[in-house]
């Protein structure tokens, strides 16, 4: 089996991110301790999610411009993998928050109500709800052509509305989450240089892995369509 260069890069970077993430030195902070290593996994999930959603929207735009059915398959697959990454982001975030934010006097789930009010979490929840609605919308239209067109329109509309949201909400609500003004981890003052050595490769690695999964789904869907079309003939 031959793998193309970017798949090999993904494997290499992820092995580096997992091994390096566990063993390379990190800054010692009293509140965080060793949980700071979760940055390599938790934050990367959100980066990968947003990048995959962006790719999905680009394919939606391409579909509307050209009307090529494969762009619709791509838009859907990238949105699907992006949603999956978002759920993983929540999972890793929940583990992290249960060690750092949760009130130690109560059981961890008792802090849920106050933690969910975090602006960053609201933004992420909105993104996931939008793509949940996107899939419901798709499944409620039977005609293939119309489904592709209508869902592409919703994808673009919702994505364009998502960005003001992510920009507005943090300025309306108080937050414990790092990166109050803008994006955490992209700001060079926020993140230690030693951590950047692992963090950036990890982001690229996870994103490439997401793209890899998406391409498999795309190829599978297109093959399935071909099979159905052949059976009809």
């Amino acid at each position, binding site marked *: 089996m031959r793998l193309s260069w970017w798949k090999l890069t993904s494997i290499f970077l992820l092995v580096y991110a997992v091994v390096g993430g566990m063993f390379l030195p990190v800054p010692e902070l009293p509140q965080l301790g060793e949980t700071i290593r979760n940055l390599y996994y938790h934050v990367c999930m959100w980066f990968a999610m947003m990048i995959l959603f962006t790719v999905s929207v680009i394919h939606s735009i391409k579909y*509307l411009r050209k009307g090529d059915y494969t762009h619709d398959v791509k838009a859907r697959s990238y949105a699907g993998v992006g949603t999956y990454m978002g759920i993983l982001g929540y999972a890793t975030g929940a583990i992290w928050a249960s060690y750092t934010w949760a009130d130690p006097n109560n059981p961890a789930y008792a802090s849920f109500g106050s933690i969910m009010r975090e602006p960053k979490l*609201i933004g992420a929840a*909105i993104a996931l*709800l*939008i793509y*949940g*609605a996107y899939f*419901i*919308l798709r499944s*409620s*239209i*039977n005609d293939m052509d*119309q489904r592709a*067109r*209508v869902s*592409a*329109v*919703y994808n*673009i*509309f*919702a994505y*364009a*509305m998502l960005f*003001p*949201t992510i920009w*507005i*909400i943090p300025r*309306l*609500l108080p937050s414990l989450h790092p990166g109050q003004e803008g994006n955490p981890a992209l700001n060079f003052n926020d993140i230690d240089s030693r951590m950047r050595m692992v963090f950036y490769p990890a982001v690229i690695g996870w994103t490439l892995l997401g793209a890899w999964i998406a391409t498999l789904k795309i190829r599978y869907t297109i093959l399935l369509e071909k099979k159905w079309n052949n059976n009809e003939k």
Partner: protein
Amino acid sequence: MTNINKIKALLRKELLLETRQQHTLYGIMLYIASTVFVIYLTMESPDSETWNGLFWITQLFICINAIAKSFLQEAKGRMLYYYSITPPSVFILAKLIYNVVLMLVMSSINLLLYAAFLGSPAVSFLQFYLISLMGAAGLGLIFTMLAAIASKAMQQASLMAILGFPLIIPQLLLMIRLSKTAFAEVFREGVPLQLVMLLAALDILIVLLSVILYPFLWKD
């Protein structure tokens, strides 16, 4: 016919339809009245925070019910007819304008009923009225586009809520925040103006997106 005249003609048609099929209009008004009455019976005297939250949630549901019909009532044949006489951007602009006007009226009724049944915590009623009109216009704009999207699918009314709620959150939070200026909450200087500008910018964004994207929706 120029585009402005076309918009005028489409608006006139909407108004004519509304006066000839009065059951829909009265239906929404009755919906508002019964919603406020139910809230009045379940809440004795809500504090200003609760009042504010309830008011905006009620606005949201009125909006969904008032605007859902704007594309539902258009039969397939009639859409085909519009297709032959107007460009899509003119059609969606007429819909947007009409729905905003409809929402302004419905929101005024809603606020009057709220003030009558639940009292008003607003220190400056006029200020709160203007804020509520602004919010209603924003809700009307965003749900017009969503109604257009949902009209292509099955189970349109519930789908509209699913599609719309995540998108409406920022506007709703901005409105709730802005409403507090009318409740005599002290703000840093310039913040209310900033909120108003943000809302206006969002509204412009929605109109632009609608005009750009609607042409793709309406051809079958």
